[in-house]
């Protein structure tokens, strides 16, 4: 789930060794016909496929298209999910009222909403954004809910003893900073889930990395499919890395 994380030098080095081993075994099994021909492209064939995708302009265009609904869906889903989780966890009345609704909606996967996304918004960025937002919503909802529920209750007394009472003061002085590690963990999981949902959201023709992958797969162009699989892994690694920098900065106090 964590993809490529830049950690201690030794870990990163070993990770690279593991990747190289995988590539070597992969290459060997195609080259020595250990797998039937046509089922798997060899790693050495991927470069040519990648170059043709880039030179044709498809690669950059697909990333641009996907980023539009990825970023929008991620933002909307994360903000609404974390906000709803926070309110449910801190207002018992809302928590009780929404308990049944949450149980009903939670198990429905993002993919199941695709027909409604098409019906309500059409085969466009808005529809794709909706699907991504829904799958990211629940991750952040539960992360925020759990984080707020596990805030050290005694810190509310500290805040009250120093004059910070009332809902907003408690939120500002205790709830938000104390729940920050959990909120950020939810956001980070959502970053990965968001990329997975991009494929689902584009399955039905909204342009982007996932759609390009589907086109290639219908032509059995497995090399191109793998190029986009790796592209998506790379995009996830990049977003996760950048997020990690922000997170480490915000959570300096945890050491």
């Amino acid at each position: 789930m964590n993809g490529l994380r830049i950690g201690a030098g030794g870990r990163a080095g070993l990770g690279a060794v593991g990747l190289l081993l995988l590539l070597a075994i992969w290459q060997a099994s195609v080259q020595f016909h250990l797998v039937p021909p046509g089922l798997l492209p060899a790693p050495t064939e991927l470069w040519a496929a990648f170059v043709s995708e880039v030179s044709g302009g498809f690669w950059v265009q697909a990333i641009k298209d996907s980023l539009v609904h990825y970023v929008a869906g991620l933002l909307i889903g994360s903000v609404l999910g974390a906000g709803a989780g926070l309110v449910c966890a801190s207002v018992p009345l809302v928590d009780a009222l929404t308990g049944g609704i949450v149980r009903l909606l939670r198990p429905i996967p993002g993919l199941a909403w695709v027909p409604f996304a098409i019906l309500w918004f059409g085969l466009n960025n808005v529809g794709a954004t909706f699907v991504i937002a829904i799958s990211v919503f629940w991750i952040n909802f539960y992360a925020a809910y759990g984080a707020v529920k596990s805030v050290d209750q005694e810190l509310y007394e500290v805040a009250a003893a120093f004059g910070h009472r009332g809902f907003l003061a408690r939120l500002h002085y205790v709830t938000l900073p104390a729940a920050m590690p959990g909120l950020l963990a939810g956001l980070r999981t959502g970053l990965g889930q968001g990329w997975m949902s991009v494929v689902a959201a584009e399955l039905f023709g909204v342009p982007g990395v996932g759609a390009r992958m589907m086109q290639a797969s219908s032509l059995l162009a497995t090399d191109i499919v793998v190029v986009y699989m790796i592209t998506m892994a790379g995009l996830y690694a990049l977003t996760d890395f950048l997020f990690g920098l922000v997170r480490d900065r915000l959570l300096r106090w945890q050491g």
Partner: protein
Amino acid sequence: MSDMTSLVRVQDAGLSHDGGKNFIFRHVDLDIEEGQFVAVLGPSGVGKSTLLRVIMGLIAPTEGTTTLSTAREQTGSRRSALVFQDARLMPWRTVRGNVELGLEGLGLSRSERRQRAEEALELVKLSAEATRWPRQLSGGQRQRVGVARALTVNPDLLLMDEPFGALDAITRKSLQTELLAIWQKTKKTVLFVTHDIDEALLLADRIIVLAGKPASVRGDLRVGQRPRDPSSPGLRALAGRLRSLIAGEEDPGNTPYWQAAEI
């Protein structure tokens, strides 16, 4: 006592969490004069900390009243401040940020807050640690930050809830000495909860014994001269007296509480 200014007045206060079936404490009467160092002494779990929170206004009493009459409502200060047993610093705030907690919302500028916090940190000898995180401090240092956080809001009443109870003996001793020095410098009214008889005898002008179930005031003693030697015969005798009061061996009888002559 009645002709002096009393800062805290507790009248027939009682607290129950089950609507009056069982009381944690009941029929508590208390007057605390300005500038006094008062210890509330009693066995663990008797409700001393709860009484402290009722006096501070964090919990409303079920019966009776508590009033904190502060004539001087100054800007940039709070009526009361609390030092907790386990420091309870906000882990996401630096040492200075923690000290500034009570100053926020008082209409002070950022630089004023910072200066006030620095002054308080100097008082507890932690100036060098201002930008560190709580996790980087020792238990004694964390508790010092807790004291600085309370002092910096310039409270009329400083409440301390077994502040040194969780520390090792050496650290406790040095913090007790420092607290006395700070108290003599700032002349704050202090209400100090402890279950340690020697600690009460070392620090307080007055010792209030809280015991029983429901708890009530079982003794109210004044302790004289300073500095003190807790091993002196007079204080040893007083310690024995306190011990039997806490254990409930000395029945207060019909009088609501028992008052010792000044020694």
